[in-house]
């Protein structure tokens, strides 16, 4: 388990975060954000990963889904300087992790009440629009997932539109990272065009990827119409490699627009994730403005060394900081909330993490 500083650093302004891949790309992103004049003084768009700047990640202790989740999210957003000044008047697309709906197995998917609270939070900050989008990977019929998971009621109550990313219009985007041999990726236009994109994941182990968090969640933006059900084109090009390529391509294509990473770890999954594992009560919500930093923090909470999760360590080359020394933990410290998620020695990706 990696060390963490577990302290708030009031000197970090949090305002900027970097989605660049190379140093040259980061310079380009800086110019782009300045020209765009994004968000007034608190220019959510990009940052420089220079020596003194650390990526903030917020950890909130949340006992259960009956809690006042909206209050928790607003508190977390404040810690990231994600305020009405920035959100007001902007469009938001929330992409939750909804893999398969099965009775008695709510720990597979992001809890509908968490999704509802995130919707409410952005609306209360004045978002122009908030929609939910998902391209379920195992279930061809995303609407069945909505009904069977109970999310349809949350969406109806909050009058929130759902877009099935498996059948959405697409735009080809260059594969800037090239860990796979895919020349380009076909990304849904609702995801590309949203002012603020939110990857809303579940805190789970994964039997191929080691852990599935906000970066692996982006498999669900890849339309099954082009990648299959399951998204075999990606599996065959390498799961870890595909995860990094997708995240890099999206960050690049969105040209520095905000990319918020949220993890539902109130009840996560351990063991044989992402479907057949057992519920694990971690009692946390984790929020960050950089996917690598967020996922690395989640791994530490789970008792997992993020450098041993292939896609996170690869992504850390260009997309964000993996080490605790480059992150600022806000809210709770990792020490306060850390709880080991069970890993299985007969699963190779878990063996690598365990170091056996």
């Amino acid at each position, binding site marked *: 388990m990696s060390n963490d500083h577990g302290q708030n650093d009031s000197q970090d302004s949090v305002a900027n975060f970097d989605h660049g891949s190379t140093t040259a790309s980061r310079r380009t992103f800086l110019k782009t954000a300045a020209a765009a004049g994004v968000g007034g003084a608190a220019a959510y768009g990009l940052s420089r990963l220079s020596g003194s700047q650390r990526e903030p990640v917020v950890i909130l202790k949340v006992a259960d889904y009956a809690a006042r989740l909206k209050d928790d999210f607003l508190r977390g957003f404040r810690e990231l300087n994600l305020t009405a000044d920035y959100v007001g008047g902007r469009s938001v697309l929330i992409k939750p992790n909804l893999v398969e709906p*099965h009775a008695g197995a709510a720990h597979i998917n992001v809890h509908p009440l968490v999704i509802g609270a995130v919707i409410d939070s952005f609306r209360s900050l004045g978002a122009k629009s908030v929609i939910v989008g998902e391209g379920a990977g195992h279930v061809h019929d995303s*609407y*069945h997932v909505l009904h069977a998971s109970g999310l349809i009621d949350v969406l109806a109550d909050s009058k929130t539109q759902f877009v099935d990313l498996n059948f959405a219009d697409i735009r*080809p985007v260059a594969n800037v990272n090239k860990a796979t041999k895919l020349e380009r990726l076909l990304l849904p236009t609702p995801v590309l065009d949203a002012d603020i994109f939110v990857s809303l994941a579940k805190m789970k182990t994964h039997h191929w990827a080691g852990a599935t968090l906000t970066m692996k969640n982006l498999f669900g933006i890849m339309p099954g*119409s082009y990648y299959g059900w399951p998204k075999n084109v990606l599996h065959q090009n390498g799961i870890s490699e595909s995860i990094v390529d997708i995240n890099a391509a999206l960050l690049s294509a969105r040209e520095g627009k905000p990319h918020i990473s949220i993890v539902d770890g109130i009840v996560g999954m351990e063991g044989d994730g992402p479907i057949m594992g057992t519920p694990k009560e971690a009692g946390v919500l984790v929020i960050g403005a950089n996917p690598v930093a967020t996922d690395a923090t989640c791994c530490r909470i789970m008792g997992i060394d993020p450098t041993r999760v292939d896609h996170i360590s690869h992504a850390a080359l260009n997309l964000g900081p993996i080490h605790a020394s480059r992150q600022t933990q806000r809210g709770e410290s990792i020490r306060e909330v850390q709880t080991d998620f069970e890993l299985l020695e*007969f699963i190779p990706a878990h063996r690598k993490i365990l170091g056996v």
Partner: protein
Amino acid sequence: MPAPFLTAAVDRILKADVAQIERPDTIAWLLLALRACKAKYELVATAADRLVRFQQPDGALPVHPDAPAAHWPTAVAALAWHGLDTYAIRTEAAIRFVMRSTGMHWPRGDDEIGHDTSIVGWSWVNETHSWVEPTAIAMLTARQVTVPESIKSMTSDRIQSGVRLLLDRQLAAGGWNYGNTVVFRNSLKPLPEETSWALAALAPYLEREQVARSLAYLDGERSGIIAPVTLSAAMLAWSAWSVSFDAESMAEVSLAAQQIGGDYPIAMVAQLITVVNGRELILGNAVKP
């Protein structure tokens, strides 16, 4: 019994402007729905003509010109054109393509995976593995559509291979999911849409006891099947196995749910209307006594 949502859905199908639709799968389902509703021939021909625009020289109808490997709409297109004499050549080209295409397969040996990876079926996208739903739809298409004499023998072999594949992917406790059975020692869970397609495709070839657990699983899911695509697949399965159900009533409930969640995409409505009003377009006479 009045069925206002069903009536509105049919109206939506009849008024759809296919010229504005850029997806061949959507147009194929619309064409099927128009035929199922006995729409005027000019509407049918307009949709059939629109579908022609998406067919490639090799007979495939990929989802998008930027993704030629995503050929899965081809089987649905063949079903949609089948029986329209003007489009016989188009149908033949499509079915030839479907019968030529296979999912990737390799010798069994991976201990982590429970199914037999060597059995040849159909995939969603070129150069990917065979999965339940595209295999089932290809089998239904091959049975329903007039297959050219020159490929009849090959088609028969492909169907038999499809039967073996679907049986191999059936979960021990019943049902199918997208096509995995056991992964890392855990038996996976079934899903109703995929189960339905597999059951519908297998009905002409198997005895009831070979799929009894799967039929029981689907029956157990009945009250929870609201979404139109899953519901339409379930109706096909129940029809194929002579399980009774009230198509109009169930469709009305599904369509009424749009009041909660907003309008379904038109392709989904078209699929449901096709099955409610004209499932013989997909099943033909493949109904278990």
